[in-house]
């Protein structure tokens, strides 16, 4: 990771999509935008810890959207991040039943020209359920699946991170872990309903 590396909006999006030096891109986002967005959260009934948590979720959401090409730079990165943070925070306030007058003013103060990211944030509940399901999966399985599907390592490279004898063992373990995780998703009511609705 290169700390202090600078990106234009276009360069940032490209770096995220390529995934080569994602850590530098994330570091840059923190350097550039964490102050602004944290101040924004704290100015709207948030604590410093709220600001920290919301900004982290904002960054994760942003990167996820860029990777899925749901954001291609049609607005400034800052504008998009603020829009995401605002939506997440409003969601959080409603969840915590802190929708007093101040929060309602915050909700209504949204600039009408602001990007609507609500549909991107709508699956926040799904993301939270992801964590619930993954927590039921053992750490060895989680590591194998992360190395393969997120870090995109080959079976050979994965051997360097895992205590297995050969690639075939890793392949078999990976298969079983994926089957196990898929089974856990089938058992989850939310995902069962989602898939069922999707099939109709």
């Amino acid at each position: 990771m290169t700390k202090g590396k600078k990106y234009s909006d276009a360069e940032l999006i490209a770096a995220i999509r390529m995934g080569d030096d994602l850590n530098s891109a994330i570091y840059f986002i923190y350097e550039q935008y964490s102050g602004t967005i944290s101040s924004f959260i704290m100015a709207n009934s948030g604590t410093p810890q709220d600001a920290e948590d919301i900004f982290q979720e904002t960054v994760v959401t942003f990167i996820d959207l860029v990777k899925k090409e749901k954001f291609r730079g049609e607005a400034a990165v800052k504008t998009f991040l603020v829009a995401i943070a605002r939506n997440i925070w409003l969601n959080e306030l409603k969840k915590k039943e802190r929708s007093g007058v101040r929060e309602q003013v915050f909700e209504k103060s949204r600039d009408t020209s602001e990007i609507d990211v609500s549909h991107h944030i709508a699956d926040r509940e799904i993301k939270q359920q992801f964590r619930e399901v993954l927590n039921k999966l053992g750490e060895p399985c989680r590591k194998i699946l992360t190395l393969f599907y997120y870090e995109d390592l080959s079976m050979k490279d994965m051997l360097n991170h895992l205590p297995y004898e050969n690639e075939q063992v890793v392949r078999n373990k990976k298969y079983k872990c994926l089957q196990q995780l898929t089974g856990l998703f089938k058992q989850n009511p939310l995902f069962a309903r989602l898939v069922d609705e999707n099939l109709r």
Partner: protein
Amino acid sequence: MLVNYLDRTLAESEMREIEELINTDMEVRSQWQFMQLAVEAVEYAALNDQVAAVKDQFRAIHPLEVISEQPKGVRVMMRNVYKIAACLLFLVIAAAGYKYISTSATDLYKESFIPYTLSTSRGSSAINEIEQAYRDKNWKQVLTAFDKAAEKDNKTLFLAGMANMQLQQYTEADKLFEQVLAHNAQTGDNYFQDEAQYYLAMSYLANNQAKEAITILQQIRTDKNHLYNRQASLISSTDLRILAFKSGK
């Protein structure tokens, strides 16, 4: 087979077969969607962990500043404290303003004036006409007798001054009290000195001559042996300060 399809390790023809199955077979499609969810979950969690790790590195260099974070209850309490303090301050300023506006020399005179009472001297010679008129509270008679009096000593001057005060003829009263003080200054005497001083101050107040009154009252307040030290000290210092400020404009 679905795992191989997911991992794209199948031959082209096999890929197309699985694709066809996914599109036509509900069971296979269901399994496929759950599998996709599983992979998406792994990727999302890993991304979250990666961001968290970079955040920790960032915070190691740029710690989160927690500047006087207060629990919401304390913030609400402090807001209420500020509101109460602001109300109190407003009340204090309003009270001070009212006090300033409402304080006047004439009002202070009305609050502070105590009529002079002639003492009874046993075995004295016959009471003269002025003294008798004064005891009878016949102020005009006092002044008539004063005008007729051949000799006008300090007592006579003083009583005539008091009669003028009772008749609200303050300028005339001032002159008579000032004559008493002038006599004493000439003779080195102090006959009716304290009385004339105090009631001269009162007369000045009644006549809205605050500055002159304050000068005399301050002299009386500092002189512990003055006959009217207590009476002068009972007059509010705040009132005197306000009057001094107003007269100084």
